[in-house]
């Protein structure tokens, strides 16, 4: 199942985002992760004949955005990145303010390893729509995928200032702050989301989970430092959150995506072959999916409090798109192993789905019967 990503060129860019291509196991844990694909298998199979047909379609109808998009995408899938960049720039020359092509150019430059050029191209999105919160948010998603967490944070700050009542956006910002190591800020942001009575439950619950993770880690640190009173205070707060399954779980998975017009689903299949997803939200071993979001951004979260030995498949399915003809879904899956425990590890896995109905396996979580010995390896 180990897959060499087609996006190996991105390795440098994504270094901070995903430990590409390696099984990882934390000593003392019985769980390990094997990274999967970023995009559906077989997406790169595009014949020269098909490319020629797409080029002919563009030549015949230069104003047809669908044809332009199909050509650029096909060239990218076929790893003809220079040709894809040429085709994308030719498209932008006649469709100067189309944000789809702006993003494609950034994608191609990213894959070519042209990090600064990609950043410049991507940033044009907010230059053209400086007062559009969704543009800043979409760009944040792209920057996250490209490993530029600080850039993503800056965009989310701007977007959040424009749409103060958007609790999902607030969640995303808190999450990025957390990943940047701004634990205090993240805690404050998650706590504000949880405390707000207008927050939808679908956002409040994962926010409470994140808050609990931060406080649980803080309580553990306090105990280790001999600060019993502080630890007690934090634990009291955790209890007040009344989280099902508490703050220590074997596997936790979060799914987010980048637009408000698409429905992407998280599927997690247990070693017994039981798939937990939107129409089967609770597994027989206590696994639970929370919540099925059908209007965009997520988050959806999966919890397995007591993982069974064997392999858990973590997959993302593109269920449906909204108005755009060019909609693809991209986002992140965050896998947390040994949540709340000393052996906790986190894995951020970007994914990209081109068409509805597609599924990508982003990771396999392997569960041993016994923990890996300290100092050993899987």
């Amino acid at each position, binding site marked *: 199942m180990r897959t060499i990503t087609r996006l190996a060129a991105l390795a440098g860019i994504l270094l901070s985002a995903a430990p590409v291509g390696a099984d990882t196991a934390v000593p003392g844990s019985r769980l390990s992760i094997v990274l999967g694909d970023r995009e559906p298998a077989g997406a790169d199979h595009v014949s020269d004949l098909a490319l020629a047909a797409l080029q002919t379609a563009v030549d015949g109808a230069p104003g047809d955005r669908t044809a332009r998009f199909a050509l650029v995408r096909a060239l990218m899938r076929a790893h003809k990145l220079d040709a894809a960049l040429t085709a994308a720039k030719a498209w932008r020359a006649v469709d*100067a303010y189309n944000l789809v092509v*702006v993003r494609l150019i950034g994608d191609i430059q990213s894959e070519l390893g042209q990090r*600064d050029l990609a*950043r*410049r*191209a991507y*940033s*044009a999105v*907010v*230059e*053209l729509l*400086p*007062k559009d919160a969704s543009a800043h948010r979409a760009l944040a998603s792209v920057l996250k995928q490209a490993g530029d967490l600080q850039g993503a944070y*800056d965009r989310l700050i*701007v977007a959040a200032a*424009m749409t103060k009542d958007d609790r999902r956006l607030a969640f995303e910002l808190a999450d990025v702050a957390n990943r940047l190591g701004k634990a205090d800020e993240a805690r404050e942001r998650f706590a504000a989301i949880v405390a707000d009575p207008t927050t939808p439950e679908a956002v409040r619950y994962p926010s409470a989970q994140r808050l609990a993770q931060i406080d649980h880690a803080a309580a553990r640190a306090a105990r280790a430092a001999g600060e019993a009173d502080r630890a007690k205070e934090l634990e009291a707060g955790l209890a007040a959150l009344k989280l099902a399954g508490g703050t220590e779980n074997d596997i936790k998975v979060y799914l987010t995506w980048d637009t408000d017009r698409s429905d992407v689903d998280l599927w997690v299949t247990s070693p017994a072959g039981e798939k937990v997803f939107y129409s089967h939200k609770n597994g027989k071993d206590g696994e639970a999916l929370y919540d099925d979001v059908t209007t965009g951004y997520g988050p959806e979260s999966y919890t397995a409090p007591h993982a069974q030995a064997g392999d858990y498949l973590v997959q993302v399915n593109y269920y449906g798109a909204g108005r755009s003809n060019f909609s693809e879904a991209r986002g992140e899956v965050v896998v947390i192993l040994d949540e709340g425990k000393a052996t906790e590890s986190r894995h951020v896995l970007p994914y990209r789905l081109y068409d509805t109905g597609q599924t990508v396996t982003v990771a396999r979580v392997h569960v041993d019967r016994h923990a890996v010995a300290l100092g050993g390896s899987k």
Partner: protein
Amino acid sequence: MITAKLVSIRWAFLRRSFAGALALSLAACGGAPKMASTAPAPVSAPVAVMPADLAPMTLELEVVTARGDLAVLAAGDDWKPVAAGARIAGARELRTGRRGAIISLGRGDAAGRLWLRANSRVRLGQNASGVHLAVIAGEARLRRKDAALPVAIDGAPVIGDLILDARADGKTDRTRVGARPELATWAIALEQVETGAGVGRMEAQAGDKTEPLALARVTVRVRTDGDMATTEVEHVFHNPADGAPREGTFRFPVPDGAMLIGMAMEIDGKLMEGEIVEREKAREVYESIVDKMEDPALLEWEQGNWFKLRVFPIEAGKDKRVVIRYTQPLSRGAAGFAYDYALAIDDAQAKAGAAQPIGEFALIVDGKEVSHESQLAGGLDLSVPIAPDKVPAAMTEARADGSYTAIRIHPDAAMFQAPAVSGPRKVAVVIDTSRSALEGKALALTLARQTLAELGPADQFAVLGADVTIAPATKDFVPVTPAAIDQAMAAIAAIEPDGASDLGLALDAVAALHPSEVVYVGDGIPTWGETGADPLAAKALAIHAPISAALVGKGASSALWTDLAGRTGGRTQVVRRADDAAQFALALADAPQVPRVVAAKVEVAGAELVFPTATSTVWAGDELVALAKTETGKPPTEAVLTAIVNGKPVRQTIHISAVAEPNVARRWARDQIASLEAASGDKDTIVKLSQDFGVLSRYTSLLVLENDEAYKQHQIERKQQELAAATPAITGGDLDSLGARQASLSPDEIQPGDPEIKIPAPRDARSVVVTFPFGETKLAEWDAEVDAWMVRFLIDNQTPDGEYQARVTITHADGRVETTTLSYTVDTQAPAMKLTVTRIAGGYAITARQLASGGSRRKDADRVEITLPDGTSLMLDQIERGKFTGIWWTAPVSGASLRVVVRDNALNQAAQELVIQ
């Protein structure tokens, strides 16, 4: 019974406003148009101050551009028309007609370049000392480089770029273009193919083609209130086509700085007033009605200063009447306030495919017809002087929601920062290369090139491309050469606009260069990195150099850069067209030499919101207008101007005595809307402000429906109709619409003489009789030329000074009798002034205060002019009635003697000597 003395008085009037018989009847609005369109500049020879040994020009003149009629007086006494491209030998005088011309003085501008405004006249000649020039009517611009052959005006050699105005005493007023670049607008416009706002175009669909409809009639009615003018342009288009009705698209250019406040369209013979409606709702209503084939019209902003209106139907063989209404500040020229109207109908229509004349054109200002033309082609350029006493120092308008006050502020001499020490300039130019710069790229490059070309040979420049990264186009600072400019521009042109705008990064990069000046060219909106106004201002101040910004692009915003320029002593200009770019470049050319007030900010006691909210730069000769909102019925009585001089804060208290005038609230609302739009403010608030004050915003459109029921059906309140009804009418001067009689006697402060009274009674009145205070009764006569009853009377030399009233009795055709009174003041006393001189950094501040004299406490002085030792003149600014100030920028000149000439409204004049201690 007209004595020689009376004739001389009359002549003085004529010289003051040289459009002949029209002069006196127009003087109520300040005088005749500077460029009357009905006739070329006067052919008789006015006085000019020129050397006695002057010979005709030996230098050959070349006509670069002639937009209208241009004539030359060379050998003999015959004026000969000349066209573009002509070379003229032996010239003595030049004069223009409706529009202006550009003349090269000697081949390759050997002695400079001369722009002549419409209906202007210039005398030229040469002697051993060089070329001598005098503007004897109208206005001109002279631009001379250091190396040009010498040119003298009023006997003194001149250099640089100057606006020249004719004066009554034969001398020529001079104003540096760098200080007041807006004064050169008409000259820059002469260089453009298409210029001039003021009239709309209608195109109609005919099969697959669109064709322009002829303008059968254009009537422009203007009403001035304080320092604002409201202009109503009535267009009557004719559809000559047979057959089915056609759909038309009407486009209208609003002049720069104007607020579009209303629109009306004739439907079924009735003029229906448009209403300001939230934009999306307006579109929905419009579309729903179009589907029913009824008669709506929707006016929306199209681009730049153009608005677009779809009109349906235009019946075959019928006329369509569309009225557009806007308000704008009066222009402040070197000679005072004026209403300007420029029209380039030929050029505009040429672009649309057909240069058709306007069947009939009329311009009426404050009830007085200024211009009336039939078959008008070739456009025109009019400037109607407005008397200074019609523009109060403060104006206020009370509404239920507050009192709104406009305060014209003239900073004291102590507020001015002295001109920078002369020396080579190091100018850093930042050019926006972000994605939003795509459309404005060509204009931005043109502007940058023009700006750099204005620098001197000893100056240096650096150019940076800026988006999310910085791309230097020069290696540090380089000398100003054509090749270096080409190279830098080529480097910027090669950058494909992309990415966002990290202005903080750009300011940091500029700071590292240590420039003496900074120029930013771009849309002005920070979208990446630091975007907060205060942190960016801190970065700007760290550069320690004036920052000027040319804001280019469809979405350009001046909100941030106005503040940055204000804090650092720079200038901001929104640049939409090539002539804006030229104006910006001219302003920058002279910038270091022009005194200015830096970081000017106005605080008004008791005001909840004062505009401008940002800091401003106030240039010498200019004024700052503050707009304040206070509690209803409680207009402010005091304002404080603060500024920074050489790093130290200074303040000036201004006492306010505001006069009631309309349109002040609208000005405040426009600034408030702009402020909210720049800050992405709440849309509903902006829409409400727009509707309440009758000012269009980006979220509102003007919608015309076919009758009152239609508005009611779509739940659209008739606010505009109410506002239009409440606003003083703009009238052509017919007696019925005037209400209170507005007979005019001008000037209303007069010396003994034979002034003329105009009474706008109906033509068919049985009689119009004027009874004078001395018992004399005179019968007025109908004057078809001015469309009014006129009577002239004598004020003899023995008449004591004082106020008098004449009584006007009108007997109408139906026997009805109406009366009105007319006040005038006889004044033979020249004003006495107290002069004070204060040494300031870089020069002397001179203040003149009028003293009570001859038992009169009236403050009627209207002009104080000082002749400086080098022969040039310094005109003091009137900052309140009877008080004038100005700055003479010079090194210390102990013992210098200056001649001060003071004049009052009645043209009484006195001279005093002022010795600098």
